[in-house]
C-alpha cells in the first residue's frame, strides 16, 4: 500500500458518469430533455429559423388566417405570427431563466445565512420576508412597476426579489436541519466563515429540495411574466412575448380561432417538460448511493 500513490482511481470520470446517468434516465425525463433542448435551439437560433423578422409587418391584412405564406396567420398589426412565436421563445425563456436564477441565488444564500447565523439576525430576516410574502404578489409587482417604470431589468428584479422569499423559506428550514449536524459544528470549530459553511457544507445537502422548488418556481415565474404582459405592464411592445401575444390577439377567440392559444400552449408545454427533468434530477440527487 505504501507505494500505491498513483493507484488509478476506481471512480469513473465526470463524462462517463454523465453518459451513464443519461442512459439510465426514465422516459419522462428523456422526453422533457428533448423538449427543453428544442425550445433552447429555437430560442438561440430564432433569427435563422423564423421566416420573417420579429417586428416586421409582412401583410396588410391583420388577423389573417393560416396560409402557406403565413403558417399561423398574422397578428393584429399584420406581423407573421409564427415568427413572433419563435422570437417570443427567446425573450420569454431568457427573462424567466434569469429571474429564476437570481431569485434562487438570492433566496438560498440569505436562507442559509439566516439559519447559520441564528438569533436576532435570523429573526429580523425572517420577519422581513414574512412581511414581503404577506403582500399579494401581482398587486405588489404592479405597484412597483408603475412607480419605477416598466423596463425589463425592473421586471426581472422585482419578480426575482419576490420569488426569492419562497426560496428563503425553504432553504432556511432545510438548512436548520443540517446546521445541527456535527460536520457543520466541526467547520465552525475549524474557523470557517459562515459563507464558506453555507456554500460548501450546507448547500450540497439541501440541493435536492431546492432543485424541486427551482423547477416549480421557474414555471410560476413564467406564468407571472405572461400574466403581467397580458395586463400590459410586462414586456413592452414591439418585443414579442408569449403572454402579450395572447392578449393582443385575444379578439380572435370571438371568431372561433385558436391561434392565440398556441403561445399559451407553448408555455404549458415547456412547464411540463421542465418539471419532468427536474423530477428526475431530484430523484437522483436525493439518492446518495445511486450515483456510483
Amino acid at each position, binding site marked *: *500500500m*505504501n507505494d*500505491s*500513490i498513483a*493507484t*488509478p*482511481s*476506481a*471512480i469513473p470520470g465526470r463524462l462517463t458518469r454523465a453518459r451513464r446517468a443519461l442512459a439510465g434516465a426514465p422516459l419522462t425525463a428523456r422526453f422533457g430533455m428533448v423538449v427543453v433542448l428544442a425550445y433552447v435551439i429555437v430560442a438561440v437560433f430564432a433569427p435563422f429559423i423564423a421566416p420573417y423578422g420579429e417586428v416586421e409587418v409582412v401583410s396588410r391584412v391583420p388577423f389573417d388566417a393560416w396560409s402557406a405564406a403565413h403558417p399561423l396567420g398574422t397578428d393584429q398589426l399584420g406581423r407573421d405570427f409564427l415568427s413572433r412565436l419563435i422570437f417570443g421563445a427567446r425573450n420569454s425563456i431568457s427573462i424567466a431563466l434569469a429571474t429564476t436564477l437570481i431569485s434562487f441565488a438570492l433566496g438560498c444564500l440569505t436562507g442559509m445565512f439566516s439559519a447559520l447565523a441564528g438569533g436576532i439576525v435570523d429573526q429580523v430576516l425572517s420577519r422581513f420576508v414574512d412581511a414581503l410574502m404577506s403582500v399579494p404578489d401581482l398587486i405588489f409587482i404592479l405597484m412597483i412597476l408603475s412607480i419605477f417604470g416598466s423596463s425589463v431589468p425592473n421586471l426581472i428584479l422585482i419578480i426575482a426579489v419576490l420569488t426569492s422569499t419562497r426560496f428563503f423559506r425553504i432553504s432556511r428550514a432545510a438548512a436548520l436541519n443540517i446546521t445541527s*449536524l*456535527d*460536520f457543520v*459544528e*466541526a467547520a*465552525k*470549530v*475549524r*474557523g*470557517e466563515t459562515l459563507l464558506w459553511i453555507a456554500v*460548501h*457544507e450546507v448547500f*450540497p*445537502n439541501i*440541493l435536492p429540495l431546492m432543485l424541486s422548488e427551482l423547477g416549480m418556481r421557474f414555471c410560476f415565474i413564467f406564468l407571472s411574466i405572461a400574466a403581467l404582459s397580458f395586463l400590459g405592464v410586462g414586456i413592452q411592445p414591439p418585443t414579442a412575448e408569449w403572454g402579450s401575444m395572447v392578449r393582443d390577439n385575444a379578439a380572435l377567440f370571438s371568431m372561433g380561432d385558436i391561434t392565440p392559444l398556441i403561445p399559451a400552449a407553448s408555455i404549458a408545454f415547456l412547464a411540463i417538460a421542465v418539471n419532468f427533468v427536474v423530477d428526475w434530477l431530484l430523484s437522483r440527487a436525493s439518492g*446518495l*448511493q445511486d450515483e*456510483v
Partner: protein
Amino acid sequence: MTQDIPSPLVLEIENLSIEARANDSWSGIVNGVSLSLRRGEVLGLVGESGAGKSTIGLAALGYLRPGARVAGGAVRLEGQDLLALPEAARRPFRGTKVAYVAQSAQAAFNPAHRLMDQIVMVAVERGGMTRAAAEERAVSLFAALQLPEPDRFGRRYPHQVSGGQLQRAMVAMAMMCNPALIVFDEPTTALDVTTQVEVLISIRRVIEEFGVAAIYITHDLSVVAQIAHRVAVLRYGAVVETAPIGRIMAAPEHPYTRSLWAVHELSVSHEAAAGHDTGEALLSLENLSARYGDFEVLSDISLTLGRGETLAVVGESGSGKSTLGRVITGLKAPSAGRARYAGAALPERVSRRPKALLRRIQIIYQSADTALNPRQTVRKIIGRPLALYHGLRGRAREARLMELLRLVELDPAHADRTPGQLSGGQKQRVAIARALAAEPELIVCDEITSALDKVVQAEVLRMLMDLQARLGVAFFFITHDIEVVRAIADRVVVMERGRIVEQGSRAQIFAPPHAPYTETLLASVPEMAPGWLDRIIAARA
C-alpha cells in the same frame, strides 16, 4: 417433525443464502447458514459488523431488507417455511409468532404517540385481543420488566422515559402476543453500562418466565456470555463455529473465534502509551461551570492535561462529559471558572479564538456519519484543513493528503470516495485524518469508538496510541467504556451529574478503594465468564 419431545423446535434455518445488490451484481451476504432453536433456548449470534448477523435475524421474521433476495434455503418457524410464502402471507406472523427488538428503541418508537398505543397495536390488530385485555397484559409485562409505575407507564410518550426504560418497553411490545421467538438485535449496545445491566436482567427474566426462544444478536461477547445458551459465530455470512456457551467461552475451537476472544481483552500496546511526560500542562481548567438555562451541566470542574498525554473522561450519558468537550473546543461558553491553554487564557468562544489557536485544538466526533459531510469526497474533507491552516494547494496538498491517508491506514484510492461508500471504521479514520491534518496539539475525542465493533475499535485505538507516540498529540478522550479507559488512558477523570467524583492516574482509579460511583461503574461492566449476571441477580435478591 417430532413435536412431542419436551422442547420442540421453534425455528429451523436450513442452508439459508441471501444475496444483496451491489454495483449491478448480486453478492452473497449470507452463505448457507443452518441454525436451529428450541423452545426456551437463547442463541447468541456474534461476529463483526457486516458478518450478516442482522440479516439472519431479520430472515427469521421472513423479512429481507430492500435490495436483498433469497438465493436458497428455508426458514421454518414452527414447521412453516416462511420463505415459501408470499410476503402478504408472512406478515401476519410478525408480532404474533415472532417479534423483533431493535437496537435503538429511540428510533423504533414513534415520538408522536403514547407508549401504550404503540405497544398494544399489534396485539389488538393481529393478535385478536380486545384493547382492555391488551392493556392489562402490557401492564403485567411492564411489571415483569421492572418498569416504574407499571399501570401508569404506558401513558407516557417515548421522550418522557429513559433510554433503558424505552428499550424495556420495546421488549414488552415484542412479548405482547406471547411469540414463540424473539429476535434481539443488539438491544443494549446503545446503552450505558449501568443501564445495560438493568435491561439485561429484565430480558433474562422475561425469557425465563415466558419460555420463549430467542436469537440474541450482539458484538459484545461478555453480554452474550450472560444471556445465551448457545453461540453461533459468524464471519462473512457463514457460521464458523456453533457451541454451547460454556464450551465456546472456555475453549473456542475455530481460529477466528479465538481471535475474536483475543481482541475482547483490549490490549493496546500500552508500553507506547504509558509514562508520558506530564511535566508541562497543555490545558488546565479551574473551577469551571457551565449551564443550559437554569440547569447547571458542569459544576466546579478542575483538571489539567499535559502535552502528549491521554486523559480519559468517563461517565454515563448526562454526566456532562460531552459538554466539557464542547467548552474546551469553544462551542459552549462556561458560566464561571477559568480555562488556560499552553500558559495563556483560552478565549471562551470559537469566534474569539485566532485561527492559529483553532488549529491547535481539534475535535473528533462519536458518529462519523454526521461528522463527515455526505456530499463531499474524502479528498475535500481532509484537504480543507490543509488549505485553511497550512495554505497548501495543488500538488503539495495532494502529497500531504496521501501521507495522511497512509497515516490513518487508509488506501489512497479512497480519496475519491464519499463517506457513504466507506465502512464505519474507515469513516472514523477519515475523521481522524481530518483532525490530524491541522497538526494539532490536543484532540478532543468524543466517544469516537463507541459506534465501532470490537475488532475495529481495537485497531483504531492502537492507531491513535501509535500516532500519539509519533506526533506527541494529547487526547482528551471522552468515553463511557471502561475497557477503553483501561486500554489507553494515562489519567482518568470520573464524572457524575456534572461533577468530577474522582480523578487520578489509571492505576489509582482502577485500584481499590474506589469512590462509590466509580465502584458502581466498574461493577456494571459485564465479565466474559458466564454467570456474572446470575451473581448480580442473586446479590440483588
